[in-house]
């Protein structure tokens, strides 16, 4: 299935583009998508533990299943610097 990925701020600069398109197996989760992005762009690997994920206008967890056609956003920590994952 196809999933679109949007990259913001630092991640956009590291990768050099603000959007990626992934082909993922059915049942893939946010974590699967992150692993696929890092496979293509290993420079992102060190950011893994800090990364926030969003679908639509809400943060989502790494274990959230993705659906075909969804847009997954990859965020660096927000500018105040406190880590959040469940708001």
């Amino acid at each position, binding site marked *: 299935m196809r999933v679109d990925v949007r990259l913001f701020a630092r991640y956009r600069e590291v990768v050099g583009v603000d959007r990626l398109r992934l082909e993922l197996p059915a049942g893939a989760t946010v974590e699967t998508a992150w692993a696929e992005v890092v496979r293509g762009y290993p420079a992102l690997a060190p950011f893994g533990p800090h990364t926030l994920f*969003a679908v639509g206008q*809400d943060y989502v967890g790494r274990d959230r299943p993705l659906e075909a056609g969804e847009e997954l956003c990859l965020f*660096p920590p927000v500018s105040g*610097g*406190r880590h959040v994952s469940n708001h």
Partner: protein
Amino acid sequence: MYRIIDRPISADELGELVADPAAGGICVFLGVVRDTTRGRRVRYLEYEAHVPMAESKMKEIGGELAERFGLHRVAMVHRIGRLAIGEASVGIAVAAPHRRMAFEACQYAIDRLKAVVPIWKKEVFEDGEVWVGPAGFPS
């Protein structure tokens, strides 16, 4: 009002937006660009947002103010793009029946905004630049 904007923030406009005959206090907070960070001279800042999600999260914070403080007269704006020293990057106005609650609600709002609203800041120094992140974030 909950907006991401790309023009200067006006404290007067924010105050007027929350004006309320029942209010005894209006607290307006402006976050402004500082000329020094961790001992380095700042040239300017660049802010970037996921605009629709940022506005949606600010609106959620407005909902939290209604729930926790019973306040409904709230305005929050954050500016994006390039900001010079002294310019306001974020503005929050809260009207409340009494001053203590206005201060508390305003502080709560800015703390929550910093924690959950998807906005990122790049500090551009005289000798380099850095995206701001928490301790341990790769630089």
